[in-house]
């Protein structure tokens, strides 16, 4: 029998790996569907006379959307595992597949609603854009919900440091909201701050004067959201995955690694929570070093 702490660390590492994949896929889903805050520019573009072929489905906040999909997938998987006694992997895949179907219906109606509302600015609705983008949107969404429900299931296992009191569907909703908030805050900046304004010089923020003048030409033909994903998959997606993976990995140190200090009473929690506070202080220091690096490397803007 393996040491329970070592086994627990193994499960945490597996959860972190699932979370990393989920985070990367979540950011790319929001890029191919233009889900998050950068979509404000896609919405603004036709009003500035810039007609486009970008997918546009941002009718809700990204965290709420991902919470809904993860919740649907978690609920269906929960029923399949407990009521129909199906194997866990098959049940989670079934739940993620149902969530993908709902996701496709949402993506279709929200894109059409968004684009049709801009017909007053002569923005056309391209049916090929709808059909071409639905596959990648549902595919990335499937990877996200499968990974999130998977890691939520691992959290409920009766192991030392786990056995979380929340049921699978609720955990899936909570992690879904969290991953949406992370994807919206990290990788989407690569889409909004760089990919949307690529015809302007690299190396600065986006001045208000050019808002709405998004890049509409691709390497070949008109740019669509698939071109956005090819670009963001090189940096924005992976770092989002790293962020969510690190959060899931470290948040379990409070119960798993804390057990190294002893297993009696509150000792593991006290030590584990203390470790988290040390990590938080380290994050402040690392962030400051990055700020100093940028100031020294890039320097001030010329007048």
């Amino acid at each position: 029998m393996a040491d329970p702490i070592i086994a627990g660390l193994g499960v945490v590492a597996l959860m972190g790996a699932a979370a990393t994949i989920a985070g990367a896929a979540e950011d790319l889903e929001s890029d191919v569907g233009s889900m998050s805050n950068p979509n404000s520019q896609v919405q603004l573009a036709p009003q500035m006379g810039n007609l486009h072929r970008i997918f546009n489905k941002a009718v809700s906040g990204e965290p709420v959307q991902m919470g809904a999909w993860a919740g649907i997938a978690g609920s269906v998987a929960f029923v399949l595992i407990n009521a129909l006694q199906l194997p866990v992997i098959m049940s989670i895949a079934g739940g993620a597949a149902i969530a993908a179907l709902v996701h496709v219906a949402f993506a279709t109606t929200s894109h059409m609603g968004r684009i049709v509302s801009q017909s007053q600015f002569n923005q056309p609705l391209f049916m090929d854009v709808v059909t071409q983008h639905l596959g990648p949107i549902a595919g990335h969404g499937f990877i996200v919900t499968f990974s999130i429900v998977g890691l939520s299931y691992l959290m409920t296992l009766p192991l030392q440091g786990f056995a979380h009191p929340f049921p699978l569907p609720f955990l899936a909703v909570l992690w879904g909201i969290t991953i949406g908030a992370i994807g919206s805050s990290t990788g989407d900046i690569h889409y909004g701050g760089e990919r949307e304004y690529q015809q302007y010089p690299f190396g600065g923020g986006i001045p208000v004067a050019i808002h709405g003048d998004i890049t509409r030409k691709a390497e070949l033909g008109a740019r669509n959201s698939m071109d956005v994903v090819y670009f963001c998959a090189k940096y924005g997606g992976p770092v989002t995955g790293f962020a969510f993976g690190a959060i899931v990995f470290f948040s379990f140190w409070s119960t798993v690694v804390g057990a190294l200090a002893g297993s009696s009473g509150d000792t593991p929690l006290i030590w584990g929570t203390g470790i988290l506070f040390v990590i938080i202080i380290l994050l402040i220091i690392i962030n400051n070093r990055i700020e100093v690096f940028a100031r020294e490397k890039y320097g001030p803007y010329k007048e």
Partner: protein
Amino acid sequence: MDPLFLILAVTAGGIAIGGGVHFIPVGGAPAAIATATGVGTGTAMLAAGGGMTGLITAAAATSSPNLLLIMLAGAAGSALMLGITMLVGNWVYVWGVACVPSSAKVDVDPITKYEQSKYVTPGTEGHGIPTVCFVSGIIGGLLGGAGGGLIYYALYNSLATLPVYAALPGASISIFAATVAGIFALGVFFVNAVIASYNIGGTIEGFHDPKFKRLPRGILACLIASLVTGIVGYLLVLGGAF
């Protein structure tokens, strides 16, 4: 558990969440395109995302009878999520967009004393998350997570004493009480995050932002809303909501 404690705990927790949201540097859509300082998402969304991680870590400490420890576990989880999110967000600003984290609201960073205005791209209101915003965000996460933990603890312990919410045979924790308390804490999080978001009115950089002076008004609104929510929470204990 004393009903007054439950109502006061929900009220205090709501105030901590609402107050904490004011500390979190959010730039909304402008920040997502590197036109404003802060994290590039909405106030309520980021606060809720941080709060959810805090709720998960607080609930993982359910077996402990120590209220302070549950609040600290919630605070640590929430601050950890916000810290990693802000750090990785800065990676994208620095290496993906190639701009220097800087604020246009202050000339000098109050913590590091770094000059800000020269590093702001002309035509923008700053970009990225400089040290003062980062520290402010961590404080916001700590407050929000502690508030969420307090609400969870109070409702869990109120419900777990009821026969209908009793723990299953062989279990020390009532998963029914934990689930209802978790969903309730989630709801209180959203209520107070949205109220604070309205008070902030779009974007805020943290405690050094002039908008931070609106904090007392936001706290008052969160107090009233959380008091009402606390009374609804007591109805849950009475069984009136089922």
